[in-house]
């Protein structure tokens, strides 16, 4: 592996880990607040899947960095400006409709991203994708069911779901942005060219939103910056909560 490719792979793996840990933590905020017991457990399960992915990405990132850091250092010892996650993942949990719509956008994204990552020439990235693909099928079935149920439900649930779609739409454009690092890896057959996933994502999301009697936003606005560390204020607050125990009691075990 050339030095340039190695450095890019480290950056890329960290980004994928950041997306997973931030979304996983956000989902975990629903635990004990779910509308009923089974849903509470479902959120716990999905959250664990994402945190598990983050652990695999960070473990690999630590191996590539080879500077004495481990997976915990990646998760707990970096500040918001060092995080490289997509902004969609860090948006607050909002109401139930908001979280499910975000989940649908993410689940459809991974439905198309993971099979491409599976083809990666990097064996570890491919292996992580292989595990995650199976989980994402279950995640998508759930978020799709909820968006259909809420969108095509009561007047109130429809209103809130539409509001969530409109509020989150501007954060979805960033999902398909490429930069130099990702282009280098896509050309090398290691990373995924996400710009090519947009049409499939849009078609699938349109299909589900339409079935849910929801309207696709026409207003074009986009917020970007996650991949270069420019975040919304939400991430800092989230990390404060996520990192405090690890930072206050280094090496603590229980």
């Amino acid at each position, binding site marked *: 592996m050339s030095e340039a490719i190695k450095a890019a792979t480290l950056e890329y793996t960290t980004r994928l880990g950041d997306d997973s840990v931030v979304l996983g933590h956000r989902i975990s905020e629903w635990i004990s607040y779910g509308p009923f017991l*089974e849903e509470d457990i479902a959120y716990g399960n999905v959250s*664990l899947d994402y*945190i598990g992915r983050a652990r695999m990405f960070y473990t690999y990132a630590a191996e590539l960095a080879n500077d004495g850091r481990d997976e915990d250092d990646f998760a707990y010892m970096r500040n918001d400006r060092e995080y490289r996650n997509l902004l969609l993942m860090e948006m607050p949990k909002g109401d139930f409709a908001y979280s499910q719509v975000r989940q649908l956008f993410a689940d459809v994204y991974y439905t198309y991203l993971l099979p491409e990552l599976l083809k990666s020439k990097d*064996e*570890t990235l491919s292996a*992580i994708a292989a*595990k995650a693909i*199976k989980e994402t099928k*279950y995640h998508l*079935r759930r978020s799709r069911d909820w968006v259909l149920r809420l969108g095509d439900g009561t007047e109130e649930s429809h209103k809130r779901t539409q509001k969530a779609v409109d509020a989150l739409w501007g954060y979805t454009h960033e999902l398909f942005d490429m930069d130099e690092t990702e282009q280098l890896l896509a050309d090398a057959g290691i990373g995924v060219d996400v710009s090519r996933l947009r049409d499939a994502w849009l078609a699938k999301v349109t299909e589900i939103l339409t079935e849910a009697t929801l309207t696709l936003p026409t207003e074009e606005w986009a917020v970007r910056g996650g991949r270069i560390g420019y975040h919304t204020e939400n991430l800092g607050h989230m990390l404060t909560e996520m990192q405090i125990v690890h930072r206050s009691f280094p090496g603590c075990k229980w």
Partner: protein
Amino acid sequence: MTEIPLMPVEQYERLQLRSDEAVKDLWDLLDAVKDPEVPALSLWDLGVLRDIKRNGKQIVVTITPTYSGCPAMNAMAEDITQALNDAGFSDVEIKTSLAPAWSSEWMTQEGRRKLRNYGIAPPEDAELDEDGLTPDAHALCPHCSSRNTRRISEFGSTACKALFQCNDCNEPFDYFKKI
């Protein structure tokens, strides 16, 4: 013509590993290590235990996680180390292997029987739906063997299980998902 029942190829390959004389005693020893979430199953039965190697005095054990976020993996690694330490092997390394991804096909026949006795329907006790996912009904009830059952929740007490309820005996039960 009599049909000879075939063992899934994954299970045959796993059994071959066990037959290696150099590490046979270690496989037998680790049969005592159980899944912390489902104590009826050994790690061998579950399919998590992938390989054991002797490297001079060092023992290298390879495990594969069932699900990405399985919180029991750390406990499993510690239990394996403990069991080997107790048997006098002080130098133990646990490696985690991601590829190939764990599949419920790796679970032993014995393990499937133990699961059913424990009150959990094993993976083959339900037909997957057209999307290849857990169906919404008809998993075999481990209590009364009825097929008249329904899925209550896609996600059960752990990531590897879904929750069903039997319409005949009314008992709820876990179904170990096929992946």
